[in-house]
């Protein structure tokens, strides 16, 4: 591959990677910090994407739709966690298996409901920034990727600042490390975790909107994003927000290079392959706690 082609692939990869980071931050919180086997996270992303599509039918810009749906998803997250905690986290022996099977079932149901509601065909949205590109030097950068890049940065950095800057945010990081200590300080660990899970689910609204901005979606997309989101969350080091950004970019660049050199049919395997590699070599990830 020529140097120029490689350079283009890397730039595209960085943009793509920030997008991957945005769709993975929710998982970094839910799975990385809270240890919830949230295998339905990508399904919620796709749900958010279809939410943006549906609101787009009323003329709403997808980003606006994402923002509007965030509180809805947040509340849903609160409810899901409450239920999950009551049913699985407190029980005995095979709660782990059942919790995992539960989220798998939920992801599955979401996918089928989307098929029944919207059909299996791809759906997309329209916006002023979709379909155009701008020229930066010799490169042509798709505007929608730049928009996704920008929103992704805001989302990841915003969440990172929230977790380290606010009291609730720090409580969330604390509960990940030592529940008992947090309880002794007067905060209810379950409420803190519930709030965190709400935030994690809330991100799926906006991140889902990014999903449909970047490319058309179809109900089965969730399965592909299991690989991408878990790859980023694990490579980051569970629970690290800065790590999520770095890991996302690494994945984005890797996928971009494979796309350019081997073609689109091999791209889905990159995330999974990278994930397996990380699990085999350094499961604690880059910034692991």
């Amino acid at each position, binding site marked *: 591959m020529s140097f120029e082609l490689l350079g283009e692939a890397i730039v595209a990869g960085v943009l793509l990677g920030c997008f991957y980071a945005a769709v993975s931050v929710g998982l970094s919180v839910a799975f990385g910090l809270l240890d919830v086997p949230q295998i339905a996270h990508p399904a919620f992303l796709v749900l958010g994407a279809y939410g943006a599509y549906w609101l787009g039918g009323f003329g709403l810009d997808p980003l606006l739709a994402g923002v509007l749906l965030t509180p809805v998803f947040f509340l849903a997250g609160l409810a899901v966690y409450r239920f999950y905690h009551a049913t699985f986290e407190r029980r005995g022996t095979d709660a782990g298996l059942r919790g995992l*099977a539960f989220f798998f079932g939920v992801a*599955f149901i979401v996918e089928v409901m989307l098929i*029944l509601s919207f059909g299996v065909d791809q759906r997309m949205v329209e916006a002023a920034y979709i379909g155009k590109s701008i020229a930066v030097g010799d490169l042509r950068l798709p505007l929608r990727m730049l928009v996704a890049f920008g929103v992704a940065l805001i989302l990841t950095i915003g969440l990172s600042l929230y977790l380290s800057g606010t009291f609730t945010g720090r409580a969330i990081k604390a509960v990940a490390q030592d529940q008992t200590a947090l309880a002794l300080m007067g905060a209810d660990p379950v409420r803190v975790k519930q709030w965190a899970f709400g935030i994690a689910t809330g991100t799926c609204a906006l991140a889902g909107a990014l999903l449909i901005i970047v490319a058309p979606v179809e109900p089965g997309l969730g399965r592909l994003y299991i690989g991408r989101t878990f790859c980023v969350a694990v490579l980051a080091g569970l629970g690290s927000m800065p790590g999520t950004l770095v890991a996302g970019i690494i994945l984005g660049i890797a996928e971009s290079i494979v796309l350019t050199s081997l073609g689109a049919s091999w791209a889905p395997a990159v995330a999974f392959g990278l994930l*397996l590699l990380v*699990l085999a070599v350094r499961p604690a990830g880059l910034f692991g706690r």
Partner: protein
Amino acid sequence: MARWTPFIVGAVVALAAALLLARFVSNEYFFFAGYVVLQFIVLATAWNILGGYAGYVNFGSGAFFAAGAYTAVALIKGFAAPLLVQIAAAALVSGLMGFAVGAMTLRLRGIFFSIATVAVAVICETVVFNWGFVGGARGATVLQPEAPALFASYTRLLFVLMALLAVLAVVLARYIETSWIGRGLQAIRDNEEAAESVGVPTLKLKLFAATASGALMGIAGAPFPLYMSFIEPTSAFSLNYAVSALAMPIIGGTASWAGPVIGAVLLGSVQQIVTVTLSSELNVLVLGVLLVAFVIAAPEGILGLYRRVAGKAGSK
């Protein structure tokens, strides 16, 4: 106390029944549907060896199933290999896959193994899509040979074969369950660190379960190309296999070999009916809803409910 005599008798009776059915039932569709149900018995039993006994959840059963199917296709295309060789090779390939995934991830927490199975499923599907020799995305046709004298059609032969495989799978599962291996797996499922501290070689046992589980899934898939006379990636790697392999044992009951059988027979039959009368999406939705419902409300499955009602303490 594990008594084998009634069990062996039951197995022989089941096989004899299968042969008799193949001889006397005239409705061909019965064998098409029956094959699918028997196939699910093997798949569900295979899943349960690792999922139910050891507690490690495989989300990618479709990959192991399809690996078996595609190994069979490769052998047919390349060597015109007989069915038994196909089955043996499928067991080897899928067993190795199970071992490899296990070796990579069974040292880590359970969820990483589960995600790795999804990874394997996607990677396998991608590889097969790009492998022209076995048909790639377009698929490949497979000719059914002439049925031997005893059978009216080749499908009936496959039906009886799958009945035999189902019996063998259940025998293996029961043996594992009632032996020291099963107790070690149960200890691992209950508390892995404690099991290790009292001398259970947890990694070795988990690897064994993963390999056995994978091999059985491959065996379930090996006759599939002949059964369909055709194979293509989308149906071979269908998510339905992954969900069914998981839902059937959980709904039937994961503690014992009987659970997957119950789940497979019940759900497999229901699936056949719903797919034909309603739609395949609805079928899959019902499966998902039932799975979630049982996981929440009846974690021990139908078997557990039955035992509770019958007042037994759970003897084997």
